[in-house]
């Protein structure tokens, strides 16, 4: 099993969700986050006053998928989230040792 964690642009969430669901990934956790990578923050001017925007709003998606599905999910996710511009985000992949469904103690892929 792999855990896939992706930081994406907020406006890409619907597209990414649709792409993942089409691949059969339907369990995921979504969090509203702020942060910056190489994109860094920038300045915005309103009524002559500058606002520093250091941390940009992003969406974090987390999911655990069977190892066989991981590559496909990563490809689908990246394709849906890509605009080709700075700030598109990143995907991180981790090995998962075990998964347990609390309700009935299912283990491994069956718990996903």
């Amino acid at each position, binding site marked *: 099993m792999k855990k896939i964690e992706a930081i994406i642009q907020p406006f890409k969430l619907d597209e990414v969700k649709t792409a993942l669901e089409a691949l059969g990934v339907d369990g995921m956790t979504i969090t509203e986050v702020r942060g910056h990578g190489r994109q860094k923050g920038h300045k915005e001017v309103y009524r*002559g006053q500058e606002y520093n925007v250091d941390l940009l709003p992003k969406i974090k998606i987390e999911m655990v998928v069977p190892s066989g599905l991981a590559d496909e999910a990563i490809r689908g996710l990246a394709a849906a989230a890509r605009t080709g511009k700075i700030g598109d985000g990143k995907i991180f992949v981790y090995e998962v040792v075990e998964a347990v469904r609390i309700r009935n103690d299912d283990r491994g892929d069956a718990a996903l």
Partner: protein
Amino acid sequence: MMGTVERAWLEDALISLAERSGRVDHAVTEAAEGTLLPAIPAGLALVAIGGYGRRQLFPHSDVDLLLLSAGDRVGEKQQQAISEFLQRLWDGGMRVSQQVRTPEECLEVHDRNAELNISLLDQRFLTGDRALYAGLGQKFPRFVENHRDDLMRNLARLTRERHAKYAGTFYHLEPDVKETPGGLRDYQLVHWMAQLREADGARVAQPDAPAELRQAFRFLARLRWFLHRQSGRDNNRLTFEAQDAMGGSDAAAWMREYYRQARAVYRAAEERLENAEAQSSGLFAQFRDWRTRLSNRDFAVHRERVHFRSQHEMEQRPELMLEMFEFAGRHELKPSAEAAQQMAARLKALREYFEEPRTAWEALKRIFSTGHAPAAVRWMHETGVLTALFPELEGMECLVVRDFYHRYTVDEHTLVALENLWKANGGYGDLLREVEQPALLLFALLFHDAGKGRPGGAEAEEGHVAWSLRLADAAMRRVKMPEADRETVRFLIGHHLELSAAMRGRDLADPRSMEEVAHQVGTVERLKALTLVTYADISAVNPAAMTAWRAEQLWRLYLKVHHELTRELETERIAGAPVELLEGFPVRYLRTHTEAEIAEHVALEERSRGRGLVVEIERRESAWQLTAIARDRLGLFAVLAGTLAGFGMNILRAEAFSNRWGLVLDTLVFEDPNRTLELNPTEVDRLRVTAERALGGKLDVRDLLRNRPKPKPPSRKQRVGTRVRFDGEAGSTATLVEIVAADRPGLLYDLASAILAQGGNIEVVLTDTRAHQAIDVFYVTVGGRKLTGEQEAAMGEALRRACGE
């Protein structure tokens, strides 16, 4: 899925409450006799308290048991006996919630455990040391009588905390029938307050429930009984599934009945709470009595409530009801129960009266412009006046729309949206103060989801927005709202989902996307209004919906679109305009002015033709505005700023536009902090004439300023240092100059004069004041160009001097 409810046992629910208590009594006594009493024959009594004490045990509610102990130490052997006793009860399927207390502890006020004091109001001896209990039973009524105020205050506090957990409303889509406002706990509150009030030293009474609540209690009790039976545990949440089971094919209609019952309980509880809070605060009583002086010819204020002076007058003149809400909204005073009844009796007549098109909008606008307008609208809703006036809103009353994120019924969502709009702070609060007609925002919000009650609901072919528009249109026509205002409301309702869609689905960093949104919105004024409507709408979905993250996203969207709408500061000029005045104005002028305003400016320009200048002063919603048209000459803006300062006015924002023919249009929005103009109407004309004389060069502005009183300088701590900053990138043809300085009357005039003295021309001014700090932003050109480095240095020096550095 759950089956249909068996009505027969529901009918018996009330009897069943007592029956279950009887069975538990039997089990407790038997277990005590088998375990507890042989080990502790004296010095321990078992007392039923709380719901169990009242003999109202629901199938899975806790069994509240007091183990009254003579001493505060319990020996090991006795402890073992107690554990065995409790185990036996648990094994018998009872969830026991036990407390071991001495009689002395039961006769103390527990501020941190007020629940204990309250649960003892319903005490009932079960078994054990009767003499020990008799001591408590005898002293307890005296204790209640002596500490009545403290106990009431604690009970009120607990209740307020519980209400706050449910955002103070009973209109939840899936309410908790015990804890939600208007639930069984509130029914008990009414009962407890009566017990506390009537306790007389000799006994704590068991007063009869008020007649109007008996039906509600039966309804709620049966419902809770059903929920326990259906889920097999102490579950009190009326889920959608349970609503279907109770309501059969028409769950929505059944829920309306639930809200009707909950409302009766909530109102009674709220009244008891307010009375208790008023009694426990001497300061509040003083304030309340002081507020009685607000009474006037039409309304009397008594104990924080508004009454009609004359019922006859009210019957003769239905508008008086609207004036009541204006009065209520202005002073945050609720209509009295008596006034509510009088209005309820006249609702039919009111509805018939307003069925005819009448100019009610003016009266409504006054209500919507008061400081507590959302509260006034809530009271209109509660008394039924709102739907008598706007039957279009009936469809959304108590309407449950099932989805994952809405927490309230549609009408409650609407009222919460109004409240959230008024409570908006930070940037959103600033936006609200900048909006010209907040009343239109309230009206648009009032109707934005009205269409959800359309026939067919979510299944209907026509979307809810289209239906809301249709309902709002009918209502606006009937109250004779001016066409321009109707257009604004139509825009806000019609587009109320678009900014949240853009927040989710648009790339805020992509200029083309933002350009499209800007194109949809059209003008800055509309952008502000729509941003506020969106803010209020999202935050009224549920208490957690407007996360800091979302508020920030919406604000970013606002900034981007605002920038998009105003970026052609100077570059793009209007060419080939149908009206001469507009020829050569920056395109931004069209973005930032409504059609009505443009028409006013055109008319004003015609009036200026004789003398070459004209000044107009008029009252806006929350401020005043001076508009001047004159031949362009250096220093025009400084003259106007100086004149206003000379009259003690505080300038909030200002703009200047010059057209191709050298004609300048200046608008200055200002506050009248001393209400000079409001209280002395002749001063308006004097100000206008003075401004015209100053513009015509017949009067030196410096003379006006000489006599102004000097303001008290801020304390050292508050003193702000002067900051002057130049930005050549902010505008395409002008340099931005930002000055942050300690505010004082005439500052803007001095700054403008300093810029003028350096050969600068002011293209745009934006000013803001916070506490003693003024933030003034000028877009300045010298000889039609941006400033050079040298010019910036010289002007910076002059500006700092003007600030007194």
